[in-house]
């Protein structure tokens, strides 16, 4: 089961990054696309807790840092998503929250994630990162992520729950 779960999560991460950079670029609002990888990390955090979410956040973030056409210092998304996975995992309610709970979790995660990424860019003095631009991008990103939550998160969470070991059955029944 753990091997299968790792495989499914790896596939989810690759698919999320591919969709986020490829087809979803056509649906961009002012250049901002939904953070699908962040939604995956939040779903894992809500179902599996902080430890696994931090790990998925780190590995997925690193992949997003390195996937073309990324052109920033590597490790910035990794850092942002580790924190998102850990924090959302801490405040979860064993995956029993409804869709509103999930949307709040995504809103918080998206805000923390995009802010941390922007902040590391400001600290490193990366080209193109300015405070005014950051303030333009973050609200759009958060709203876009929250808007997609009802469509995407239930599916991701159901999948994550199915992959959990049998001893967690009572959580599903509750």
């Amino acid at each position, binding site marked *: 089961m753990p091997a299968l779960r790792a495989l499914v999560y790896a596939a989810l991460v*690759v*698919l999320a*990054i*591919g969709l*986020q*950079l*490829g*087809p979803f*670029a*056509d649906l*961009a609002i*002012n*250049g*901002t*696309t939904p*953070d699908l990888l962040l939604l995956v990390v939040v779903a894992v955090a809500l179902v599996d*807790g*902080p*430890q696994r979410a*931090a*790990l998925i956040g*780190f590995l997925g*973030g*690193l*992949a997003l*840092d*390195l*996937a*073309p*056409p*990324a*052109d*920033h*210092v*590597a*490790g*910035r998304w*990794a*850092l942002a998503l*580790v*924190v998102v*996975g*850990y924090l959302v*995992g*801490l405040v979860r309610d*064993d995956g029993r929250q409804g869709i509103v709970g999930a949307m709040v979790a995504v809103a918080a995660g998206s805000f923390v994630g*995009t802010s941390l*990424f922007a902040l*590391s*860019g400001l600290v*490193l003095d*990366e*080209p*193109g990162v*300015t405070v005014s*631009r*950051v303030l333009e*991008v973050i609200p*759009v*990103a958060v709203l876009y992520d929250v808007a997609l939550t009802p469509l995407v998160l239930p599916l991701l969470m159901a999948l994550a729950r199915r992959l959990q070991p049998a001893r967690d059955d009572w959580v599903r029944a509750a």
Partner: protein
Amino acid sequence: MPSDRDSRRARAVAGVLALAAVTVIAVDATADDDSPVDPLRNASGEVFGPVEDGLDEATRPIEEVADQVTTVDGLRDDNARLQAEVERLRAELETVDLDRERLESLGAMRRLGDEHGFELVTAQVTAVGPAQSYSQAVTIDAGTSDGVEADMTVVNHQGLVGRVLRADVHSATVLLLVDASSVVGGRLGADLELGMLRGDGDLSDAGELTLTTMDPTVRPAPGDVVVTWGSRGGAPYVAGVPIGRVASVQSSPEDQSTAARVRPYVDFSALDLVSVVVGATEPTTERADPTDTERADPTETERAGPAARAEGR
């Protein structure tokens, strides 16, 4: 319920991972040219290049259908048979339009290549960097196996798109002109004056370039055409490719400089087919311009006036 031990372990794991991320950032940020992260970037390009390409291919029909649905909204009340018929015909028409557009842009790029004596490799844009990343770069589906290498010029049928930042085997990353870190040498078509064009990093696809002329006494006029100046050896930019038109001019008396805003010809929000200049061939045009024969050599073109070429587009 999570036990105390579990939460302590989670905290430790998250802490270690955050430190690892900071380490990666530190290693990549302090390395100048040869970052130890670069091989990883190439490896990830090998994985994500084909994934992005595949997803782009797979979702193309969906995009066409989605465009379709919004155009037939007004026909909802018609009977089902007619509606289906209209939809089918429209879908056909739309793809014809799309095909024609692509064909036209291919033709225009070919002409550009022929006129300037460029050898072009045509590629498809498969992924676009999001605004959240604060950079303007795209992935194309051509790489070193097609002859694409770093620091090559990328054009489309409208003009200069940018340069190749990194090339993997089957994909490459292109830095767009409008990225905040992009600098291009340009020549004002009207009087051949030189200047540097910097991207403003605007993320909403309405990006403009800032032109600073080398000679501060030169005042660009709105409407002036700007073409590439061309670097020695044609890398990263070959000479004579149209960049854009001067949109507005501001001069500041205190530092005696003039900054002009240049609107690029290329529509960066609708990038589809692009061409990479992989080399120079003999020009095939039969224009009487004697400088034509020298265009194969990029260093020669630097001296030859590109104004005629700018008009020729």
